[in-house]
């Protein structure tokens, strides 16, 4: 037994709170017996660490990124009567296309143009990962959760709301005309979706009577989407707006303002800023599956133990992400003022309705 005496942590501490997977339990037991590897395995399988590193954390995030970029292109291509990325790995329908693009970006020159604010221009695309990754700690998958707190939901929403601030900063550091227009649009869009988004979340807090996401998932014997479909709709549309996907791809609008805030980025820096929207999309999809689709709830597969919740959650998240990708090939981009009008009139009205439903359900004590 390795002893971290100072912290008072022992390996047993991790093992007590470990993800249980009956299927490979003998293997885990065997690995735990080996001195250093055992400790590493224990830490990785320690529930909070598992949440951070494996699911819904980094490993899944990376896989999902590579997958969803490919999948989006493939689905769009399918609807558009063509094949999409293919020849890079023909037998697997070119599934590693995003990897090739990423590698190419990685080895491309990073240009910082003369007028840019050099330190911020290079810092922000990296700093932006803080608000992008932090919410992953609060999202529960069955009993795997990074940090369990009764304020998990408000904290998550608050951190996610920080992302546009960073994008505005990126646009400011770029010091370009199109970046400027793009950031202004981003800021406007932020005001457009934030209120309906928060109202939708509030209505769900009212429905469940708690802001603790673990409890919310536990309480969902009936999925939230059936209890409050209007809140689900508002949440979905706000997600589309927040991740600037069509038809609300307004801040990035490549045909109008050439990717707006990201116009001057090149090489791996563009690779980083381009994935922000997808990462945000992943987090909001996780949130949506927690709030409305019952999170990790689902028929338990005994052999997989805790992993069955992971699989259910993953499937639900992917369904949401696929639905978001599908919109790309259906809609045209609408104008900023139209988007603002939609959110401040129709969206606001129905989100208030969603809150009303939440209040009613709360008073009726349905859940």
């Amino acid at each position, binding site marked *: 037994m390795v002893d971290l005496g100072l912290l008072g942590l022992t390996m047993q501490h991790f093992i007590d709170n470990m993800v249980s997977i009956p299927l490979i339990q003998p293997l885990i037991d065997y690995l735990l017996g080996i001195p250093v590897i055992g400790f590493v395995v224990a830490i990785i399988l320690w529930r909070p660490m598992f949440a951070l590193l494996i699911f819904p954390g980094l490993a899944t995030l990376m896989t999902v990124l590579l997958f969803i970029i490919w999948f989006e292109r493939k689905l769009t291509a399918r609807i558009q009567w*063509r094949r999409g990325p293919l020849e*890079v790995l023909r037998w697997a329908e070119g599934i590693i296309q995003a990897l*090739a*693009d990423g*590698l*190419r970006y990685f080895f*491309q*020159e990073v240009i910082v143009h003369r007028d840019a604010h050099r330190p911020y221009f290079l810092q922000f695309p990296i700093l932006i990962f803080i608000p992008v990754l932090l919410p992953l700690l609060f999202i529960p998958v069955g009993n795997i959760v990074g940090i369990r707190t009764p304020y998990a939901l408000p904290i998550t929403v608050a951190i996610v709301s920080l992302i546009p601030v960073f994008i505005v900063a990126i646009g400011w550091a770029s010091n370009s005309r199109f970046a400027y227009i793009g950031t202004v649009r981003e800021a406007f869009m932020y005001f457009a979706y934030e209120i309906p988004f928060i109202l939708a979340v509030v209505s769900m807090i009212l429905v469940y009577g708690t802001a603790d996401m673990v409890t919310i998932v536990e309480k969902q014997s009936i999925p939230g989407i059936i209890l409050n479909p209007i809140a689900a709709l508002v949440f979905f549309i706000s997600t589309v707006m927040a991740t600037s996907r069509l038809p609300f791809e307004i801040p990035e609008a490549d045909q109008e303002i050439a990717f707006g805030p990201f*116009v001057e980025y090149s*090489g791996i820096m563009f690779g980083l800023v381009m994935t922000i929207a997808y990462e945000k999309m992943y987090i909001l999809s996780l949130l949506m599956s927690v709030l409305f689709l019952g999170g990790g709830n689902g028929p338990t597969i005994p052999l997989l133990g805790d992993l069955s919740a992971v699989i259910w959650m993953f499937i639900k998240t992917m369904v949401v992400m696929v639905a978001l990708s599908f919109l790309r090939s259906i809609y045209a981009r609408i104008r900023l003022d139209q988007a603002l009008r939609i959110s401040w009139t129709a969206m606001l009205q129905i989100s208030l309705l969603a809150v009303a439903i939440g209040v009613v359900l709360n008073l009726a004590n349905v859940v």
Partner: protein
Amino acid sequence: MSENVEFLGSGIFAPFKKWGTKWSLWPVHLVTACCGVELAHAYASGYDGERLGSLNYGIARQTNLIIVEGAISRKMARVLKITYEQMPDPKFVVVMGACGLKGGLFWNGYHMVRPSDVVPVDFFIPGCPPTPESLLRSIRALQEKIMSGKAETTISFDKVDLSEIEGRSSAARPPTTPKFIAPTPSIKVDVPKDVDWEFGKKLVKEFEKDLNGLYNSITITAKNRIAISAEKKNIMAIANILSKRFDHVKNVNVIDLPHENSFIVEYQVSSYSDKKLMPVVVNIYARIPRDNPRFPSLVTFWPSADYLEREMYDLFGVWFEGNPAMGERFLLAPDTPDFPLRKDRKLKEEEYCFCEVRE
């Protein structure tokens, strides 16, 4: 071997660099001329260039391939250069279409530049426009180049010996050019023609009455075509009268007559509002001296003449007095020689014979 390919093939990451770049050749959205039609076909459903990992993408900073789509004009050459400079290394250039190689159809035009003089080019595609297949072939060839480090032409020829065929004992005299250009051409834009057109004859009568004393002659040159010859000083008055019936300008034209030391300036006007006048095109023209080419602008009567007049100033140097934009380049690049459409601006002549006549 270009430095881009050298960069990709160096260092311990070379296989990753090469593989990543090979499957991710993103052409920038730089449409330069009409070959863009076939480029669009190559990347649309019919051929789908995205299969090869090549995705048509927005702007220079985020891409690594320029597909020069045909003609590069003097004006565009700067843009091409700037775009190339904006692009992060490693980057590649493919030129498609005859216009982009040596000018193609426009090989002796005054506004054409060879892209290979402006940026380093990796591959050239013949055709006007090249088929989408050949564009995708260039992507394939570029992928091969990235992997092997060497560019390969994808066609090879077998040579045959021609000397066995019976020929002449000595070389024949090569024929002269098939073009015949009259040294002192006589230009007349109102050649009368006898046509069966009652309405026109009536219209000519009306014009004769309305424009009494202002015109030199009114002729029917073809069905639906009437030419009114006038002096420069009367043009404004004629336009004032005609603009009540004819509401738009179809054409502003200048004809250069160096041997007569004059320009003919034509305004062809027609009507959209009057159904009967719709097919009628009335040509009002006047001669002006070549050494002081000034003409009253008719923009006040016909705003639709604005850009046409500016174009004519660009090409011929006829100053349309009253058009506010005179004296500025519109279509032409700043470094193009002045007034290229004047007849004394000669173009390079065709060569029909790659031959040194053996005596």
